[in-house]
């Protein structure tokens, strides 16, 4: 990498015209692009001949959960109507600070919503993948697992072993061979390397 040009917030990066667009870490004002981060400048060509100007900081990304983002979360408590969890990462970026999320009973699966029993879907300690439904109320974000790809990805059985999924609603303990109900996520093969096991 050649000596990167480093910019600070408020620094003018260039004129905003038809061929340039401002990307992350920048903002537009009075026909100019300004930096909004202390980081290094990166401009790359995107399709249709446009140039994207970005300011990046590799070390630490300040990310907060946003609507429609895929988050990884750990279930903290389960009640008949909802379960609460702590979000651990957004996409591939781990969160620096924990954010609380809430998964309501009606957002667990897409079909037969009224027959959902929370205890048969999640247990405290499970790692789930969910989508952020909305920013929710003042306390917690609202999450949803109404897709095949969303749900429990890692769970520990009562015997203390990591369970293996056997169907979309069951997981099996390799130690005791007992089955436990869960809302299992159909983990996409391309994401398997992130599962950690």
């Amino acid at each position: 990498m050649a000596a990167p040009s480093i910019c600070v917030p408020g620094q003018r990066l260039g004129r905003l015209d038809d061929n340039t667009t401002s990307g992350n870490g920048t903002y537009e004002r009075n026909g100019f692009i300004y930096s909004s981060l202390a980081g290094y400048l990166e401009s790359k060509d995107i399709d249709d001949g446009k140039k994207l100007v970005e300011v990046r900081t590799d070390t630490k990304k300040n990310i907060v959960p946003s609507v429609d983002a895929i988050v990884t979360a750990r279930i903290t408590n389960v009640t008949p109507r909802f379960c609460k969890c702590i979000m651990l990462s957004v996409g591939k970026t781990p969160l620096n600070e924990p954010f609380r999320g809430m998964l309501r009973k009606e957002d667990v699966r897409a079909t037969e919503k009224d027959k959902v029993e929370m205890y048969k879907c999640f247990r405290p300690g499970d790692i789930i993948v969910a989508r952020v439904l909305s920013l929710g109320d003042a306390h917690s974000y609202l999450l949803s697992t109404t897709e095949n790809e969303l749900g429990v990805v890692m769970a520990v059985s009562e015997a203390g072993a990591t369970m293996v999924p056997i169907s979309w609603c069951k997981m099996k303990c390799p130690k005791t061979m007992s089955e436990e109900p869960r809302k299992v996520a159909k983990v996409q093969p391309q994401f398997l390397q992130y599962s950690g096991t």
Partner: protein
Amino acid sequence: MPTDSRRITGPETSQSPHIYQKTNGTEIVLIDENKKRQDGRGLGDIRPMFLRAGIVSQARGSAYMEQNQTKVICAVYGPREIARREEFSWKGQITCEFKFATFSCLHRRQPQQDGEEKDFSVQLLEALEPAVCLHKFPKSQVNVYVTVLQDDGSALAAAITCASVALADAAIEMYDLVTGCSARISGGHILLDPCHTEEYRSEKDNTVNNGSVTLGLMPSLRQVSAVTSKGELEFEHVKKAMDQCLEVCQKLYPVLQQSLIKSVKEKLEMDKLSDCHTT
């Protein structure tokens, strides 16, 4: 204000060192016949400044600033979840806590925030808020903690500058940095960047046209984000002082830039090193 009963205060009988102080009681001459100030500066001269970003390792971002004997450290945490029950808001929040360390001033400060510190906290918040892209972190909060380690005048101005650098160091998205500067107005004279003995105190300098002005400027946008004045001042003087402060703020901008560039470079180096170790 209630004092903290759990802490051990000093012995019951003691002599304050301030009664042995030289300046006590005598009139302070702000400007001598050669138009020089007590420390040899001219009226418009500011003190040399030292600024460094990325000081506190636990914090997300931090900065330390020195102007001779005025020493300020600032740490930024977040964006984190808002812990208290509050109304939902699409915008992010900043909280500021300004604190004089107990040992920072000539008189001992209490460990809790007193009125002046609360006042400064609000002024600091108002100076920083316009510069931060609050919409980038909805529903979350950024905490800014400023501690004055030693107060030799212009602490608020230093805090504004230091906090804005710390915010930028924490990679919080901002429209611009904020630089602070203060001026003391005494009679017809304007003393930039006053030190402790030159600072305006309402209890002794209560004649007309005695006061101080503190200003926060976003240098690249050329916008004033905060301005406060103390004392009974004529508008002409306030305006003149503000203009001079603006000029100084613009002059300070490269110092802020340099310190941030240095910290970004250091971080990039660190990244490279850690990449080498992992691969």
